[in-house]
């Protein structure tokens, strides 16, 4: 019988924060003294809700249909996610590229009054009849939550009528301020409705929980490293088959290319099925890749071989790394990203020779506590902003810090461009960031971005951000309130 309770929110489970302004050393101090407080902002810019990330987490599962039980707008980013879905097939060399399949139950005013049960049923039955999928995911929303539709009860009654496995992911946007709760909501749904015990163990199979922003080239790099260690990677859940997801219970270990993303699913695989998991953040940069690989090695009894592999890889890339260090020496860089990527991307400052002047981390929780401590030892004076984007704070910081390069995703690269700062996109699905080769590729993109800043420099002369001049003179964290 599935566990119908929604997943615990990140703020409740991990004391997550989305508001902080100070330096890296100050954050590390707050962690050490256990005196970090949950704070709010009296000014906010829009962000992403957990429903978005829950849908983003499951929409690419093979032979699936996703249903958002909501007004039509809550499914509108399906088209954005379909870009990833198609790109994923392109880089895998698929001959016939297909769209993802998603529905909105399309709740309207009438359903707010009378309930949306009929529409949810209609969507589930239509999805099943039209496509005969293996699995149908249902995502709840603010509206379905407020009007109190008993989605799990409806599902229990619907399941015998359809062929697909019906999977419910409760993920009402207003219930959590931390969008990473959506990752957990997706994992929770798979754990409750899809996974079952299996007697066999595959001693070579390692689950690699990967967010959709970790691209195919990163997978290829991991497959290359695992191949050298006689391990097989089981990438889940993106582009995975239902069998691939089910097979995860028989793996010898679980790791994640982004622990922020995989934390809950990995913990629960350990708790429910005894598959042990690693706690390293992300194999990005030499040091973090070493640590990440060694943890996998410890769980799969391959420590000696892994040490040899690490030594060989380090020696292999060192000449090129030295050239990149020369080119990036003294360059001042600002990084903005989700917590695991923000930490590891900031930590490569030492390996690539640049100076870290600041980092925006989309949220903070204990998953990155050790990593913050290590970063503070090297870059303690760097600015540290915890914010689910909030580009107004960043605009102020960038004006003060005047970095040579800004590294982030498309939610904010365009804003930094208007400030004349060259940018590097660090979530491009078609590029490699992870592993030893990923570090070289990242360094090369940084060098290229610095080589010709003409677009950014000239754009800044003609376009501006929507903030008053007075804002740039104010404390960047003036709107953080206790």
């Amino acid at each position: 019988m599935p566990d119908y309770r929604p997943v615990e929110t990140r703020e409740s489970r991990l004391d997550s924060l989305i508001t902080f302004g100070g330096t890296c050393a100050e954050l590390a101090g707050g962690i050490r003294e256990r005196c970090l407080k949950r704070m709010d902002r009296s000014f906010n810019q829009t962000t992403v809700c957990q429903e978005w990330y829950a849908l983003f987490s499951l929409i690419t599962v093979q032979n699936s249909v996703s249903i958002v039980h909501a007004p039509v707008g809550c499914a509108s980013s399906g088209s954005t996610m379909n870009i990833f879905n198609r790109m994923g097939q392109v880089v895998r060399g698929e001959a016939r590229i297909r769209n993802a399949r998603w529905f909105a139950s399309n709740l309207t005013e009438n359903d707010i009054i009378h309930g949306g049960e009929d529409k949810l049923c209609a969507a589930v039955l239509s999805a099943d009849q039209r496509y005969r999928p293996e699995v149908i995911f249902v995502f709840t929303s603010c509206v379905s939550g407020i009007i109190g539709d008993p989605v799990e009860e409806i599902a229990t009654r619907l399941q015998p009528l359809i062929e697909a496995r019906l999977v419910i992911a409760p993920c009402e946007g207003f219930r959590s301020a931390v969008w990473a709760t959506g990752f957990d909501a997706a994992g929770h749904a798979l754990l409750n409705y899809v996974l079952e015990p299996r007697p066999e163990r595959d001693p070579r199979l390692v689950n690699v929980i990967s967010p959709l922003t970790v691209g195919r080239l990163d997978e290829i790099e991991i497959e290359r490293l695992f191949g050298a260690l006689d391990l097989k990677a089981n990438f889940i859940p993106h582009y995975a088959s239902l069998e691939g997801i089910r097979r995860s219970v028989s793996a010898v270990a679980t790791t994640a290319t982004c622990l922020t993303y995989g934390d809950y699913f990995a913990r629960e695989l350990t708790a429910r099925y005894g598959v042990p998991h690693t706690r390293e953040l992300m194999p990005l940069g030499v040091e973090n890749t070493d640590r990440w690989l060694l943890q996998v090695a410890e769980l799969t009894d391959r420590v000696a071989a892994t040490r040899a592999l690490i030594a060989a890889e380090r020696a292999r890339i060192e000449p090129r790394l030295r050239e990149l260090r020369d080119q990036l020496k003294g360059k001042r860089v600002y990084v903005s990203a989700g917590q695991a990527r923000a930490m590891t991307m900031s930590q490569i400052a030492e390996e690539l020779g640049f100076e870290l002047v600041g980092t925006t981390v989309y949220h903070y929780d204990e998953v990155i506590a050790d990593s913050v401590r290590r970063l503070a030892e090297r870059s303690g004076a760097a600015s540290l902003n915890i914010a689910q984007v909030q580009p107004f704070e960043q605009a102020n910081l960038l004006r003060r810090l005047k970095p040579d390069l800004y590294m982030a995703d498309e939610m904010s690269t365009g804003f930094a461009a208007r400030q004349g700062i060259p940018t590097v996109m660090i979530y491009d699905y078609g590029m490699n960031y992870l592993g030893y080769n990923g570090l070289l590729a990242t360094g090369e993109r940084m060098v290229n971005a610095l080589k010709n800043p003409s677009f950014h420099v000239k754009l800044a002369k003609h376009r501006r951000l929507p903030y008053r001049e007075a804002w740039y003179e104010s404390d960047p964290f003036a709107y953080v309130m206790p």
Partner: protein
Amino acid sequence: MTGTISLLDAVRTPHCRIAENPRYSCALGGALPTVGAIHRAVPIIHAGPGCGMQLFNGQNYVAGYQGYGYAGGASVPSTNTYEREVVFGGEGRLRQVIGTTREIMDADLFVVITGCTAEIIGDDIKAVVEEFAGAAVPLAYAETGGFKGNTYYGYDAVLAALARQIVEPPARREPRTVNVFGLVPSQDLFWQGNLEEIARLLNGIGLRVNTFLTHRQGLAELRRSSAAALNIVLSPYLAEPVVKTYEERFGTPSLRYPGVPVGPTATSEFLQLVADALALPKRKVRSFLDAETAYAYEYFDKSSLVVTGFSYQHRFAIVGDSATVIGLTRFLADDYGQLPVIAVVTDEPPEEARPGIVRALQSLEYADPPPVKFLADLWSVGAEVRNVAPTFILGSSLDKDLAQDIGALHQSVTFPATDRLVLNRAYAGFRGSITLVEDYLAPGLVPL
């Protein structure tokens, strides 16, 4: 719900219009790009934390990667209401965020737009907004809860709200000024280029044009738009609440043209209607139309190398919003010798507007009238299109799979389009029709 039978009945009930791969978002999704297109206007979202990015991604991003705009994407001020507001109300939070927005954001106009949660919990938006009456930067509001309607509804709601709250009574009439409505930013992929071309043409017959959404027009143009002699609507049904408001408040007459005029025949007809309504000098209008027509035909003649040289004549299906479907179908059929085999209208126009849409699509000069279907759901669209076996699908990028399945050519001309970048490209008017010819002939040439 009692069992299988009633469940299957539920699927067929008309009110159960579920949407597979929907081709629009919600009212808030229409409000955001509409406010965002007004020069130096900044939206303030009163809704849950994720509405802004969900709808930025779901509208602007997938409309040919149209960018953030002045204060779009992750920079839009928002109350980000959580459980606390859902339980205790969000008015205090809204008041706070309006106040801080005024301190930080540089704007000529703020517009509070609401999402589902704010409206379901019953916040009194009007009361909160009125507390800021008389402030240096005006503040308007529009109720755009997502459950109330789709993107088109949100466009109408914002413009009608501005017509009530921002537009001022005219100091004096301007007999040669017109307002243009009906093109929904991002939902019409080519809204910007189309409005620029429409404005160029109206300028050409001697008119000043308010589009409010292009040419860096904003608060000033909105305020004095009541002086216009005519409201022009380029849609079979949109902007009804806004033109009604102008009519009631200022007695402004309106002229509705059912769709975006594309190509010499439709554009000449449209401009002639405007000229007649405003009694413009006939000779001047005639000579402008003649020059524009000659310009277009010079290029159509050049395209003859492909269109006659390869016998480029397709049985085409067209899928999208009513204004674009009408405009493109009429051009391709009336001016360009193509064969329409089905027109699928996906914007769910009100019942009373449907006969007019069918008429516009079926009154063709030479071609057989195509069947017209009103459907928004991907599966249903696919079933209808397969039935008529077209050799070319003009639709959204969602229709690429269908085109591949039936071996038809495909070009993205309606929302969403993730396979092309759209900046100032236009299909409207004379020049736009030349661009459309380039895009229509492109897929056949790609493999060469």
